[in-house]
């Protein structure tokens, strides 16, 4: 039984890393949003499994919030925003997909090496979880730096937050923070969608952050 619980947790957390990789090579916005919904779904399954094996009912709430907001509400809302604003459907990348994937593999390897070495004495389950969480976090960061569109940067940031939620759920008995961090990630998402995209739309024809660079104050 113990072996099985461990394997399932491992599978789900590993699946999250895999979906993070899938986010990296999407070149269409709608596809990206769909993959992000899968990302959030895997996260909620993973957190729900943690709730089950740790016997921590409050984590079910976290899983439910991840499912409802991140897997359904936010992707749907972003779909509508993309459609209504007529944002370019292609995602412009700073670096090619190939090199990005290679860097991503390097980052995952790095986080495995760092976390597994550092946490040699910790509970094996928490240890694996933390290593996977760091991978998801770094992949989210990578996505944010290699994308130009504001929408895909927001997706990158939310996938990064998924990594944090995974880490917090894996840390046994961690108080408060799971709920609070989820509440904040929702707040962040709302602020981004509501304020920034609409404001950007007010002034520009594009939500491509690169276009904003023209308006740098320092450039004459």
């Amino acid at each position, binding site marked *: 039984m113990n072996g099985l619980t461990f394997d399932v947790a491992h599978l789900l957390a590993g699946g999250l890393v895999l979906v993070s990789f899938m986010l990296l090579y999407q070149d269409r916005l709608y596809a990206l949003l769909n993959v992000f919904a899968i990302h959030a779904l895997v996260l909620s399954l993973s957190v729900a499994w943690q709730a089950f094996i740790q016997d921590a009912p409050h984590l079910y709430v976290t899983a439910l919030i991840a499912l409802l907001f991140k897997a359904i509400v936010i992707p749907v809302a972003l779909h509508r925003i993309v459609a209504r604003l007529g944002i370019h459907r292609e995602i412009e990348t700073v670096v090619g997909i190939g090199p990005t994937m290679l860097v991503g593999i390097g980052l995952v390897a790095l986080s495995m090496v760092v976390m597994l070495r550092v*946490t040699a004495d910790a509970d094996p389950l928490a240890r694996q979880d933390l290593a996977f969480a760091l991978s998801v976090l770094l992949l989210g960061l990578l996505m944010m730096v290699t994308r130009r569109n504001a929408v895909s940067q927001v997706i990158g*940031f939310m996938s990064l937050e998924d990594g944090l939620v995974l880490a917090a759920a894996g840390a046994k*008995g961690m108080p408060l*923070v799971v709920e609070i961090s989820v509440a*904040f990630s929702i707040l*962040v998402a709302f602020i981004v969608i509501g304020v920034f995209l609409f404001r*950007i739309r007010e002034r520009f024809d594009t939500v491509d952050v690169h276009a*904003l660079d023209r308006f740098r104050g320092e450039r004459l």
Partner: protein
Amino acid sequence: MTILPANTVFLVLLIPAGAAAVLAVLPGYRLSARLNVLASLLTLLSALLLFLGKPQPGAYLLVDDLNIVFIVLNTFVGFTTSVFSASYIAHELETGRLTPGHLRFYHAMYQAMMFGMNLALVANNIGLMWVAVELATLTTVLMVGIYRTPEAIEAAWKYFILGSVGIALALFGTILVYMAAQPVVGEGLDGMVWTVLIDHVAAFDPALLNLAFIFLLLGYGTKVGLAPLHAWLPDAHAEGPTPISAVLSGLLLNVALYAVLRFKMLLAAHPTAIAPGPLMAVMGLTSLLFAGLMLYRRRDIKRLFAYSSIEHMGIITFAFGMGGPLANFAGLLHMTMHSLTKSAIFFAVGHIAQVKGTQKIADIRGLTESHPVLGWGLVTGVVAIAGLPPLGVFMSEFLVVSSTFAREPLLAVPLVLGLLVAFGALLLRVQGLAFGEPTGSSAPIQASTVPMLGHLGLVLAAGVYLPPPLTAWFQHVAGLLG
């Protein structure tokens, strides 16, 4: 352990929170500007009440000798900035840059930000502290973007993205601290309570703690504006309303630094964990040298002083990184002096930019002739921030340099070099701004210069004579920092 200490510390949190709620629904900017000032004043008074009796540390809130310094400084500059802001925004409304609707939002956000910063300072729970820093970040993001110009939106976006990444790294570090604590103090709330952590830290797993500190330093370091994570800072300062530049430089950077210091104390109390000092010292020196050089090519007056803030945060981080009673004392003093001076400079810059209608350094000349009070105020502020005697910043910089010379003479070379480079750049710029043939409008400003003069007066007074009780207090806190 009681969950919450029923005491004055609540007032410091409840007043801004309540004021934010009231201001969010209150129409009419005149009234809300006054209410904003009143709420800030009441918060300051309740912060001073904390000196009378410190509540027992609870599971969520803590007031000790370290953070009381930060709280009082925070609420004081928050109050003076609200006074400055009242006259500043009236002008913005006249020129049509802001609408009354924006102002309602602005005032509510101002108090929400003060709430976030005060909460971060009194939090005993490292999770709560993280949430509070995030809250303060989000409110300032919204305020930086309030003008809705393309530049403001870009600045807010950049600030938001970099700030969120920083804050995410900090949360990961916080989780790692909990993981390190969990085998020792057990599961649940205790694993995040700072006072519990510091008592048991010696038994924590050093490797986890080291890794946690790296994440925390990078995460909160982004918010402090340490190079190479500073990219958001100049844009956010330049494009937002000037009162926000003043609180960003004077307060928010300190709050983030306070978070770093709390974790530094944890690591310092552990026998085999890495020494946090050298990491901080290196980041501080890098920021100082980098910002010092960047000061030369600035064309925008608010950007110029934003880079100067990076420089000074570098010096302060360096001083705390060196550690020891003298360097910590110097760091604390420098932090206080920098907050007061830099916000005074931004008060002056705000009025100047309004009356001249530009932020371009090249278009502003001869201020001492067209606006003597503002012009000389700016000159005094810049002279102070450049570190000339007899003002307070000179004394703290001198202490940083002399304590470095005494312990690590080689490190003092880049430190002094950085200080001189920045000194040259600032004096070069202020000469053009303050003297020569006046340009632009010479209309008198219709705003109170009291906040600016008050700050400069305090900085001058501190440079000339530092009251012994204050010195004793700072020495005591410096001892706590290890």
